[in-house]
């Protein structure tokens, strides 16, 4: 990008209106002007975001612990941290299945419930829409830690309302600790995360729904399309971008879920079957002062999320072109 150096003179030299108007031959100015305008923001981002990312990558190539922090000496070990991650049997039997499986279910659940609530709200009058909106906002506003403890109390083995109800109904004879089993453990996390995540989806999709032209829906109704068909054939295609944003953001959030697992009974490492990527990296690296290893996991997580986002955005754009 050596062109950027010449930009200032180009700014003075080229007459702006003609450059902007020329359709075929774009002048240097036209091509570089957006970058020029973006430069201050990019410079700030580079300092605040790029440099930390570079540092994390550099740490991931070292055996970096408390001793290295004190001495300030680097301790390069090449890609040994990455080697350890990929040869760890726990990664394939527990950590990845838990993380990916959970993310898929959580994203599907959050988006489905959020959309359903959005459709409900769109069909309500202003008063009831405000009431429902405020109610779901409370679920959203609740801090993750508080919400998690409420779910823990509900499913508490000895005094939780869930076990008491099951016992009263005669479905179980004695209290069951739902936190010791991998699948029931994650079922509770799933409830927690969906409950906490769906309001954002609902509000975002509601905003999109209200922008869908009424005429189009009325026309479809006249042609005899039922509610189900109108939803899939008109609303969904119209809201493709909104769904894309919501799905990508949910995927990123649900991949990184930490507090909702770590705070659950047994979730902080004593139930090895319940480890996910976030808790595993914390227990294996920061708990043991192995900052290099933790950085390597962070780099991999970033790459995975980046890949998912790129693939998703590309498919969306491709469909658009067709």
């Amino acid at each position, binding site marked *: 990008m050596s062109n950027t150096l010449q930009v200032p003179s180009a700014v003075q030299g080229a007459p702006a209106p003609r450059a902007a108007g020329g359709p075929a031959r774009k002048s240097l100015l036209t091509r570089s002007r957006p970058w020029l305008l973006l430069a201050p923001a990019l410079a700030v981002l580079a300092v605040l975001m790029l440099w930390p990312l570079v540092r994390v990558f550099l740490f991931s190539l070292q055996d970096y612990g408390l001793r290295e922090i004190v001495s300030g000496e680097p301790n390069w070990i090449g890609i040994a941290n990455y080697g350890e991650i990929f040869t760890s049997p726990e990664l394939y039997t527990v950590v990845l299945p838990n993380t990916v499986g959970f993310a898929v279910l959580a994203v599907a659940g959050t988006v489905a419930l959020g959309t359903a609530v959005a459709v409900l709200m769109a069909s309500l009058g202003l008063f009831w829409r405000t009431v429902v909106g405020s109610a779901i906002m409370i679920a959203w506003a609740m801090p993750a830690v508080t919400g998690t403890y409420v779910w823990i109390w509900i499913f508490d083995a000895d005094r939780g309302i869930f076990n008491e109800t099951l016992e009263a109904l005669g479905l179980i004879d004695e209290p069951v600790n739902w936190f010791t089993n991998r699948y029931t453990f994650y079922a509770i996390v799933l409830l927690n995360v969906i409950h906490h995540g769906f309001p954002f989806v609902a509000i975002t999709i509601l905003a999109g729904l209200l922008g869908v032209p009424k005429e189009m829906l009325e026309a479809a109704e006249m042609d005899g399309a039922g509610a189900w068909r109108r939803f899939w054939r008109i609303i969904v295609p119209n809201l493709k971008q909104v769904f894309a944003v919501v799905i990508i953001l949910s995927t990123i959030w649900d991949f990184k879920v930490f507090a909702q697992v770590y705070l659950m009974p047994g979730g902080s*490492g004593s139930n090895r079957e319940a480890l996910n990527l976030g808790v595993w990296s914390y227990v294996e690296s920061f708990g043991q002062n192995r900052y290099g290893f933790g950085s390597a996991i962070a780099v991999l997580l970033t790459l995975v999320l980046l890949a998912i986002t790129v693939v998703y955005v590309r498919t969306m754009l491709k469909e658009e072109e067709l």
Partner: protein
Amino acid sequence: MNKRFLPIAALGLAAALGLTACSSGSGDGSGDGATNAEGQTLTVWIMEGTNPDSEAYFDEVGDAFTEKTGAKLDVEFVQWADAHDRFVTSIAGGTTPDVAETGTTWTAEFADAGALAPIGDYVDEAGLGDDLVEGLVTAGTYDDELYGMPWYAGVRSLVYRADIFEELGIEAPTTWDEIVAAGDKIKAAHPDMMPFAVPGDAEFGVYPWVWGAGGEVSTLEGDEWVSGMASPESQEGIGFYTGLATEHGFSSAGATTWKETDVLDNFAQGNIAMALMGSWTPAAIVEKNAEMEGKFAATPIPGKDGGIAPSVLGGSHLSMFETAENKDLAWAFIELMTTGEFAEKWGEQSGYFPGQTSLLDDAIASDDPLVQPFAQQMVEGGGTVPVTPTFGAVQAKKTTNTAMQAILSGQKTVEQALTDAAAEMDEIMNGN
């Protein structure tokens, strides 16, 4: 703007100026020693919450310190929860305080990193060597050098409901068989109660049974740590402890994932008849539920056939950091805090035991049923987990808790769970 805010802003400014004035003096320590440190400031980090009235306590210490040395004392209170991170970042940035309270399991870790200054010579000079609680000295010693000055400690013992024991005519258990006999009686008379809580996520409740049966957690053999968690003795001890839940039904399904705080909450609510709890908990139990006052007592943890099973000493050291410019001054503060009047006062106010043996003797002579048994446990049955930074990694990975939870939930047998735990301990502690 608003006139009401002016005085507040002025106060803030004054406070800021005051702070600057305090810190401006430090840094010109020229090794004059501790007695003539006029104009210097000693920065100290203390954990928040141990002593409910620590502000007043440190005002008093500060006055005494200034009188003795001429220097000012600047105490900053740090939350336990983020203390470790704060130490690490300040070590990285070279901004550590002169003296800080360090949890007993951290001292070796920070010493290993080269952040702490050895204090063995000072202790010898002061003639304190024989007057310090042994378990705390062991925990503060790394590579044959003392880095942590014993300050205060607590210990876990068997806490039981004295009212229920009296009602059923049971004596405090002194052997394992008596624990089972007492549990059976309580279970029959009070089916709603948990006779003996066996929490799955509380490792310090596990080691007394290992040691009480003659086992070891991990010992250094030559250059190599060898875990004793899978030995027949350890299996017998942990088998008995988990058996209280799995065979005798003294515990509950929920306790499989309990932490120590859950044991405390449930004991305070009156759901538990016996449990291993710390010497600092009686005050908290009464605070949570005033009705419990006078209804419970403590006794040392019984060994298998009698005697006292060792229990882990938990507590804090005062450590001097390498960044301290005037080490004599730092030591003067440490000595002031950990011996004599102020150490005794801290113990009284916080409910912990002092780290000086001569002060501890007073506690043993006490006839308080919630002080004497703990003091006896501490002196006659105080234990330490392996003193090496790598054991911190074992704790972070929750090796012991994982084994406990696997046994209690029926996922693994005692033998299988402990074999896995021992293998993992060896792997982490020998640095592979």
